[in-house]
C-alpha cells in the first residue's frame, strides 16, 4: 500500500505530540482509524514546505478552509495569533454532520462556518461568505479541494495569498514526478510534495 499524504494539524514540542485530523475515505484511512492507542505507525515526514509566516505581523489575515483542508489551518491560526495578526477564519463543510474543530477554531479567533447544503451556519460556499463580509485583508491562506482553491484564487486575486494544494502522490519526496502542477517559474512546473504543498497563489495554475 502507498503512503497517504496527511497534513500536520497541530504539534506540541514540549510533550512530543503531533496531531493529525483525517476523514475515513478509503482503504488507507480506514486502516489508520482501526489502529489502537499505544500502537506504532510508520511515518515519513515532515515533508515539503508549510506556510511561511516570516514578516506577517500585526496584519489582517483571512484563513479559508474546505473539508479535509481545514486541519493544517489550525496550527497556522495559532501561529498567526502569536504574531499579533487579526485573523478571520472561514471554514466550509459539506453538511452539518461533516463539521469538525468548530469550537477549537472559535477559541482561537473569529470563525465563520458555511455548509454546502445549508444545514448549519451560512448556507453556501466560503466564497459567498467572503463576498458578504466585504472586509479588506492584507493576506489570505487557504487549503481545500481544488475547485474551492481555484474560486478563492480568482476572487482574491488582488490580495497576497498562499494556497496548499492536493494531488495523488507516489513517493512524497520529489523522485517520481507523480504530483506535478503547472507553475509560473523557469521550469514550468512544481512538485507538490517537495516544493509545496503550499505555494504563492500567483505561482501555480490549478
Amino acid at each position, binding site marked *: 500500500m502507498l503512503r497517504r499524504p496527511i497534513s500536520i494539524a497541530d504539534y506540541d514540542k514540549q510533550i512530543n505530540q503531533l496531531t493529525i485530523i483525517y476523514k475515513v475515505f478509503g482503504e488507507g484511512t480506514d486502516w489508520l482509524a482501526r489502529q489502537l492507542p499505544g500502537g506504532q505507525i510508520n511515518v515519513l515526514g515532515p515533508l515539503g514546505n508549510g506556510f511561511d509566516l516570516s514578516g506577517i505581523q500585526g496584519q489582517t489575515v483571512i484563513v479559508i478552509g474546505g473539508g479535509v483542508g481545514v486541519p493544517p489551518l489550525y496550527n497556522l491560526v495559532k501561529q498567526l495569533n502569536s504574531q499579533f495578526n487579526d485573523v478571520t477564519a472561514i471554514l466550509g463543510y459539506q453538511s452539518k454532520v461533516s463539521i469538525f474543530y468548530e469550537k477549537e477554531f472559535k477559541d482561537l479567533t473569529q470563525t465563520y462556518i458555511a455548509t454546502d447544503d445549508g444545514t448549519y451556519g451560512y448556507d453556501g460556499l466560503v466564497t459567498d461568505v467572503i463576498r458578504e463580509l466585504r472586509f479588506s485583508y492584507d493576506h489570505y491562506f487557504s487549503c481545500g479541494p481544488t475547485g474551492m482553491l481555484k474560486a478563492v484564487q480568482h476572487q482574491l486575486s488582488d490580495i497576497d495569498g498562499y494556497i496548499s494544494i492536493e*494531488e*495523488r502522490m*507516489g513517493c512524497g519526496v520529489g*523522485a*517520481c*514526478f*507523480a*504530483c506535478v502542477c503547472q507553475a509560473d517559474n523557469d521550469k514550468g*512546473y512544481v512538485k507538490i510534495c517537495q516544493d509545496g504543498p503550499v505555494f504563492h497563489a500567483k505561482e501555480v495554475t490549478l
Partner: protein
Amino acid sequence: MNLSVQLGGLTLKNPVMPASGCFGFGQEFSQFYDLNTLGAIVIKAATGEARFGNPTPRVAETSSGMLNAIGLQNPGVDQIIKQELPFLEQFDTPVIANVAGSSEEEYVIVAEKLSKASTVKALELNISCPNVKEGGIQFGTDPELAYQLTNKVKNVSSKPLFVKLSPNVTNIVSMAKAVEEAGADGLSMINTLTGMKIDLKTRKPLIANETGGLSGPAIKPIAIRMIHQVRQVSNIPIIGMGGITTSEDVLEFYWQGPTQ
C-alpha cells in the same frame, strides 16, 4: 559474504539497484541512506528535449501495486548531464542512464550524449514505456524495430548497453533474441504492464492518461516467468525488476539468473 556481480563489463559491489523512474536522479533518496551502499543507480529516463509529461492524476493505487502514467517527464538530456549528473559523481556507485525517445534519431542522439558523460557507466535503452504515444513502445513490441534500434545505439556508444524489455508482448523470447543479436550487452526485465483503473465516483478512468503502467508485487510472478523463459535461450546478464520489496524477492530473482 561477497555479493559482487559482473554486469556486462561492469563490476558491482552488490546486485541491488533502484529501477529507473522510481529514484529520480538520486538526490531525494540520498537524505535517507548512503547511496554508496547500492550496487548501481538507474536514473530517470532522458529524452532529447525537456518533456512535461502527462496531465494529473498520474498515479493510482491498485491491488498489490500501482499504475503510473508520468509520461517521461524529464529536463532533457543536456540538462541532465549538466544539472543532475554532477551530484552523482561523489558516490562510488556506477550510474546507469535510461535512454528514451520517440524516433530512432532521438534515441541515438540521447544515447550518444549520455555515453560520453564520464559519470555514466552503462546505458539502459527504454523501448518499453507504455505511457506516451510515442514513447518507444513500438520499438519494444516489434523484434525487427528493436533489432535496428539496438544496433544503431550500440554503434554510437562505447558503454555497456542494456535493453529494457516490455512485458506487453506475446513472445518475450523473440524480443530478447532480437536485441541480443543486435549487440545488447544485457537485458532489463521487466517494464510495467499496461492497465487501467475506473474511478467509481466519476465512472471514468482515474488516471488522466486513461491507461497507466502497472508495477509492484502484482507483476512479480510475470517478471519471474519472463526472465525464466529468456534465460533458457540467452546467456547475457539480466537486470531483474518488478515488485521486489523484500530480501526473499531478491533471492527469487537472483536464483532465476538475473542480476538485480
